[in-house]
Structures are given as C-alpha cells and as structure tokens.
C-alpha cells in the first residue's frame, strides 16, 4: 500500500515538472495585460488572436511548414531505399553507413548550420531557403533510416521471395509486397521527422536572411524585442498542434513504439 503511494507521488512530481510548464504557458497567453506575468492580469483571448495578425509569424510558419513537409519527404525518399539496402543486402560497410547517417545527431546542429553558411551559401551563392531545405533534409534523414530499418527488421523476408517466385521483378516485389507492409513505419518516420524539423533551431540559426526565417527562430527574435504574452500564446498553440498530431498518431499507429 505505502509502495503504490510512494510511486504515485514520484510520478506526479515528475509529470508536474515535465508537463506542468505547458499549463502555465496556456494561462500566461490568456492574459489581458500587456506584459508577461503569472498569474495573468485578467483573462482574454486577445494574445491568441494577435498571433495570427503578426505578419512575420505567418511567413515563418509557412516556411517551417514547407521545410518540414518537403524536407521529410525527401529524407524518406532517400532513407527508405537506404534502410532497405542496409537490412536486406550484406553490403560492405553497412555499419559505416549507419554511423555516417547518424552523424547529424552527434554533430551539434549549430555547427552544421555554420558549415552550410560558410561553405555553401556564401561561396556558392546558394539561396538561404535551399540551404535550409538541405539542412532539414539531412537532419531528418537519420530518423527516417532508423525508424524504417526497425520496421523492416520485423518484416519477414519470405513475402518478397514469394512475390518474386510469383513472377514479380525485384522492384515490383518491393513496391507491391514490402512497401504496403512498412507503411505504418514510414508514416511514423514522417511524423517524427516532421516534428523534429518543425521544432529545430540550432541548424537554422545561422541560415536566416531577410524575410526568410523558420518559426522557432522568428519566435526567438521576437522574444528579444518584446515581453508581451503573444509568444506564450503562440507556444501554447504550437504545443496543442504537436499534442494533436502525436495523439492521433498514437491512436492509429501506436506511435510510441517508434520513438
């Protein structure tokens, strides 16, 4: 009896520390006053509405959205065949490939961003948007490969062999037998990649130009000049968006297996 009690206390405290702050953001954004404070000075929705009228937030939201969607799609386009090759063929140096693919996770993002700026944007005249796209693709790639590899490892190889015996080419066997079976893994990889890309800051830190900024960078910049609750409101909205995505993914895919 006392043990379950202790366990409850420990878990509640941990969750309070991990999740409590979000409730605070939600309420801080509801403030009617013009500076950030808690408890808020009166309640109003004005800051939640104000978020939508800030032009730069709209622009950077669109950019982040596009980067997250297309960066993740490109990463999957590269990552799915890579994962397939790593799993099915005994290619020489598979371990090395795994290591290289994992490198962006180990190498601090800020350095990747700096390297891109110094060696691609400045000397080769790449546009910032293109560099951002490359950076986000590279960032998501490890997740794509890892999640899809994990799914492929659980898939039996005989269904492909059966498909080939029944007259499919290798490619057809892949598209008709393998792909439908790893669909949920790919979807999970997409969601994980999307969220990672959308939220990521360090890589994009140096990669911003006039009018070209990802949303988190824009929020950081906004925070430096003003102290009003709009960033709290925006944070809360984004948190709701993430929660909704993860909740739906969890219900339909059992998403937490893949993380």
């Amino acid at each position: 009896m006392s043990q379950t009690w202790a366990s409850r206390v420990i878990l509640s405290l941990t969750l309070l520390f991990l999740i409590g702050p979000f409730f605070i953001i939600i309420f801080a954004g509801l403030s009617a006053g013009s500076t950030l404070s808690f408890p808020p000075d009166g309640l109003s929705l004005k800051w939640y509405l104000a978020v939508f009228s800030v032009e730069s937030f709209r622009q950077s939201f669109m950019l982040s959205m596009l980067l997250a969607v297309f960066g993740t799609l490109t990463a999957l386009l590269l990552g799915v065949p890579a994962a397939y090759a790593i799993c099915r063929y005994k290619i020489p140096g598979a371990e090395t490939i795994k290591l290289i693919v994992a490198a962006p996770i180990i190498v601090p993002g800020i350095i990747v961003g700096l390297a891109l700026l110094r060696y691609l944007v400045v000397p080769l005249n790449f546009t910032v948007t293109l560099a951002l796209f490359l950076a986000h693709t590279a960032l998501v790639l490890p997740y794509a490969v890892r999640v899809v590899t994990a799914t492929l490892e659980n898939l039996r190889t005989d269904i492909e062999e059966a498909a080939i015996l029944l007259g499919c080419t290798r490619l057809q066997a892949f598209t008709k037998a393998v792909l439908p079976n790893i669909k949920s893994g790919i979807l999970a990889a997409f969601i994980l990649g999307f969220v990672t890309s959308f939220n990521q800051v360090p890589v994009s830190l140096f990669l911003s130009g006039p009018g070209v900024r990802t949303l988190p960078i824009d929020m950081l910049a906004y925070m430096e000049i003003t102290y009003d609750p709009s960033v709290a409101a925006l944070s809360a909205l984004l948190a709701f968006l993430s929660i909704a995505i993860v909740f739906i993914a969890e219900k339909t895919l059992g998403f937490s297996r893949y993380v």
Partner: protein
Amino acid sequence: MAILLSEAFKVGGEWSLAGYADFISKPLNRTVFFRTLKLGALVVLVSAVVGYAAAFCIVNLEPAKRGRMFGLIILPLMISPVARTYAWIVILGRTGIVNNTLVGLGISDTPIRFLFTETAVFLGLLQLFMPLMIIALISSMENMPKDAIAAARVLGANWFQVFTRVILPLTREGLVLGGTLVFTGALTAYITPAILGGSKVLMLETLLYQRVNVSNDYVSAGIIATILIVMSFGANVVLRRLAKA
C-alpha cells in the same frame, strides 16, 4: 555529411595550435567551457536519479497505465523546445509565479533575479532532456528479470544493496545510453542557454553564436566547434566503452 564534417573541422584546422593557446588563455572561454561541462554533468546526474525513481515506478504499473504514462513522458519531446523553455520565463521571471508568490507572501520585498542564472539554465535543460533518460531506463528495466529484485530481497539485501548490486548492473546499458543522449543534448542545446542564460550565463553554443554574429571571430568559432564535436564524440565513445566493460 562527411564533407560537411571535415569542413567543420577545417574552420579551426587552418589555424595551428597558436589559436588554441590563445583561446585557452582567455578566462571567459575557460569559464564557459567548464560551465558547459559542469551543467552537462549535473543534468545527467539529476536526470539519472529522478529517472531511476520514475522508470522504476512506471515499469511496475499495470500495462494499460504504463502505456499512458509512457505517452505522457514522451509528449514533451514532441513539443517545440522554444515553447518548453519559454515556460521557464513565465515561472522564473520578474513577474512570474515564483516571484509573485514570494513577494505576495512577504518572504521577499523585491523580485529575486532567477532568469539569466545557472540555476535557470540547469532547470531548463533538465526539463528538456529528462524524458530521454527516463525512456532509456524504462526500456532497459523492462528487460530486467522480474524476480531478480525479489530474490535479492529474500536473500536479505536492503533497498540500497538491491539498487547497487542488482538494478544498477542490470540497467547499465540503459543508463549509459540515456546519459549519452542527455549529455550530448545538454552540450549542444542552443535555445535554453540563449533564453534562460542570455549573455550573462554563456555556454559553448551561445558563445559560438556570439563569436560569429557579434564579433565575426571565425577562429574562435572554429575552435569552439571543434571542442563541441570532440566532447560530443568523446562522450559517446567513453560511455559506450563503459556500457561494455
């Protein structure tokens, strides 16, 4: 990515060791380096202590509750770090909860400065990376034979002995994995030290940003970049050894 990596090294590589000697001779750089190391280690330590307690409780829950708990633990990972860090401004700021409570209760006459202190950065990093540790510990505890603890108890071990002799050795891999993730995360976090530490409590990442964007000092930037990569890789290698030893 390989080209990128070598290029990142080249930034500092163009300069011989003289640049490094110069870098180390500046007290600010040393302070920042040791602060980053210290905060990283502290975050790992505290998240391991809390992580063990939380993971142990979660593993012992009934399956349905366990899944829900696990979902709640990974939830914060999916939310923008900017939002997660921003919450601490609301909590610790001049007109935040803590100060309003302290002043309201008459404990303190004026708001206390919490933001831009090491404590603030520490709390922010801890909140950001603790879930990684908890997840790593949960998965290694799930692989632990259930009766090991009961057996040790029957044989007369107290809880401290159970932890050091049974749980710790059996979950070492999880601890090492979690530790690596948390340490590298804390080392390479930019947002948290930027928002909660500002220019008062610089960490290697924020120092790097300043060197590039404020003083255009690419030599220092390259050196910091190299230090960060070496620390990050070093932590990975050392901890992986520990897991196998």
